[in-house]
């Protein structure tokens, strides 16, 4: 049992850090430090830099462009991206549709799509959630009816992140409404967003940002060749995603970076002419979050190194739920504290300057701008990706037999 990083792992971290320092465009980094989401162009440009270096898809098999890194190396890579901060790989591409095509796709699908996914030649979005089917995915209603060489898709998806950027959408659709179980009769389709009959309606969130959308399908014709896996077996694809990426939800690197930002803000904000960071209570709150984040980081490393006793079999390990739960709670507590530190200026926050209803950012100090929008936006962290209530339920049922 040696709980420290090895010399090789430390060297690897240095290599990654140096590469990011040398290659990440400064304005991308600054935008992210300010708490804003990178633009589509910034995300794509960075992914192409990584792809050129061979680091676009560390989690993929080497034959499809993966790096062959250990779990610890992949963790270090992700943490370095998060801490810089640099745009993270577009999850819909690299963590979702890519692995599914690798696991279930035809050779033709792999040949055509995988290189484009890696390089974000196609920006993908995810069509799973529907109105009335949030955490209860299996109750989805969007249907696809076979018509010759095509499926005809009708229905509605919601909470579709960055649909406005997307070239393609991967969807769960109902192909057999008569199936005995609700999970049966669902298929996994790849749909070109330029297809006639697709409408994207923006959903503006309370931070003023435009991240999510509703996507409507009205008689959309999808070639049968875009079916992934077997018809009516789309649930297998969905399940693959549930098992995937156990430690990413902890977002340790992101929270480290945001904590650093919080400490910067607390050095800038003043009360009675002194920086807030000098106040005992603020320091204690920061220290308390740092303790929690350290505990979370150790749990992540424990999982990565495979040393968890209960973790022999991936199925029986509650770690995913714990990491999601704590990761979101810690991230949210940082944004709460940012809001507190911003103080009155928090009320005047401009939101995403690209979004509607924004204020002139120059009226307020730069350090205070992102606090409120981030606080509001990150409420999603305990909702999306399986609510925190669902995580607690999973733990109780699956790991404690309650």
């Amino acid at each position, binding site marked *: 049992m040696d709980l420290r990083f090895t010399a090789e792992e430390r060297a690897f971290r240095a290599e990654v850090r140096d590469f990011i320092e040398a290659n990440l465009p400064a304005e991308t980094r600054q935008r992210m430090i300010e708490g804003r989401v990178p633009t589509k162009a910034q995300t794509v440009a960075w992914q192409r830099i990584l792809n050129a270096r061979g680091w676009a898809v560390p989690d993929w098999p080497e034959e499809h462009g993966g790096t062959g890194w250990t779990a610890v190396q992949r963790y270090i890579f992700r943490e370095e991206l998060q801490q810089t901060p640099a745009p993270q790989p577009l999850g819909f591409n690299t963590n979702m549709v890519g692995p599914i095509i690798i696991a279930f796709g035809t050779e033709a699908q792999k040949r055509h799509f995988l290189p484009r996914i890696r390089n974000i030649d196609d920006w993908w979005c995810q069509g799973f959630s529907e109105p009335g089917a949030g955490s209860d995915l299996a109750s989805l209603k969007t249907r696809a009816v076979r018509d010759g060489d095509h499926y005809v898709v009708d229905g509605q998806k919601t909470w579709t992140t960055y649909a406005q950027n997307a070239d393609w959408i991967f969807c769960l659709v109902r192909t057999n409404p008569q199936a005995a179980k609700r999970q049966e009769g669902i298929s996994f389709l790849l749909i070109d967003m330029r297809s006639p009959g697709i409408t994207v309606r923006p959903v*503006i969130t*309370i931070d003023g940002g435009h991240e999510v959308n509703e996507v409507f399908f009205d008689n959309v014709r999808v070639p049968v060749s875009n079916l992934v896996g077997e018809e009516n077996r789309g649930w297998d694809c969905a399940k693959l995603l549930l098992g995937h990426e156990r430690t990413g939800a902890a977002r340790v690197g992101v929270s480290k970076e945001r904590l650093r930002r919080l400490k910067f803000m607390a050095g800038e904000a*003043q*009360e*009675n002419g002194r920086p807030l960071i000098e106040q005992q209570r603020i320091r204690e709150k920061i220290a308390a979050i740092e303790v929690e984040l350290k505990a979370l980081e150790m749990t992540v490393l424990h999982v990565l190194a495979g040393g968890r006793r209960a973790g022999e079999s991936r199925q029986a390990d509650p770690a995913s739920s714990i990491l999601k739960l704590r990761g979101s709670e810690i991230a949210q507590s940082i944004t709460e504290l940012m809001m*507190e530190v911003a103080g*009155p200026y928090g*009320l*005047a926050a401009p939101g995403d300057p690209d979004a509607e209803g924004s204020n002139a950012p120059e*009226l307020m100090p730069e350090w205070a701008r992102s606090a409120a929008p981030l606080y509001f936006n990150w409420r999603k962290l305990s909702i999306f990706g399986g609510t925190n209530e669902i995580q607690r339920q999973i733990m109780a049922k699956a790991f404690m037999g309650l």
Partner: protein
Amino acid sequence: MDFDLTEEQRLLQSNLRRLLADHYAFNRRANYQTEAPGWSRAMWGRYAELGLLGLPFAEEDGGFGGGPVETMLVAEALGEVLALEPWLSTVVLGGGLLRHGADAALRQRMVPAIAAGEALLAFAQAEPQSRYSLSDITTTARRDGDGWVLEGRKSVVLHGDTADWLLVTARSAGARHDRGGIGVFLLRGDAPGVLRQGYAMVDGQRGAEITLSAARAEAVLGNAEDGLALVERVVDEAIAALAAEAVGTMSALHAMTLDYLKTRKQFGAPIGSFQVLQHRASDMMVALEQARSMAMYATMMLEEPAAARRAALSAVKVQIGRSARLIGQQAVQMHGGIGIATEYAAGHAFKRLAAIDTTFGDADHHLRALAAEVSAAA
């Protein structure tokens, strides 16, 4: 001790609630927000008709002689619909400064216009560096003939963009943090030397950054060096009103959440049938009741001597902040995705509650103030 409302108070409450029910449905609020000033001039006229705008002023000044309880009732009802109009800034803040600080002549000049809905007021108190300190003032007031000329920058001024009159704190003497040397000055909003940059704040209320360059005051309220006690009193009254407004908002948000729990189905059952959400709703109910109790306490303590009043209002602000955070966050969480979509009311209530916590000192600021007074018991 008597918690019952008088017949008149009941009437006021039900008339206002009826008005708001008729005119302040959530989709209309969104429309009001896009009107030129960022709120509804028509509603402002209706408030005037109903007597809301002259309510707390003495009858001899042209008001209706209402007290803290009436203000509480109005604030709570406005909070229920997340009203956007500058009632707090005009009637409670600006009006409060006039009530307690202006001489009879000035009151009798201003109050009828306020009551008629013809004069909007804003309180330009905070400065970029001042955070929650009421005495951290660098704006200066300089004697000029028999008047005063102001110089400085005021920040995040609630409804400062549309106000006809600004009530501005400025330093006529003393150094930056001194308690003495502060005066409250009355300026026309469009006076030469007043530069106003307005914006919508995160909760849909309007704010403004105001730069004063040799701006001439119309009057000073009382003594130009002695205004801090007045400011503290009026800020405490505003905290009491904010507490009541927050209770209204929390109460509406709790009700919205209960509705959602009863109608939204998941896994084949209304989500309100899940025990965890039931108990969460109970915790919200407890938090609401605590806040309601403290809003009443605030009302009761406004007439007490300054030290007792300030401590009481700090306690109120702590409780309001904590209840608001719990109720706001849990309401959003239980609504799921639609809790953070601008198309639904819940997220707006959540944001207004967050803003109220930050207005005139957040829960932690006031907790520190209370902690400073804790001492060992004999």
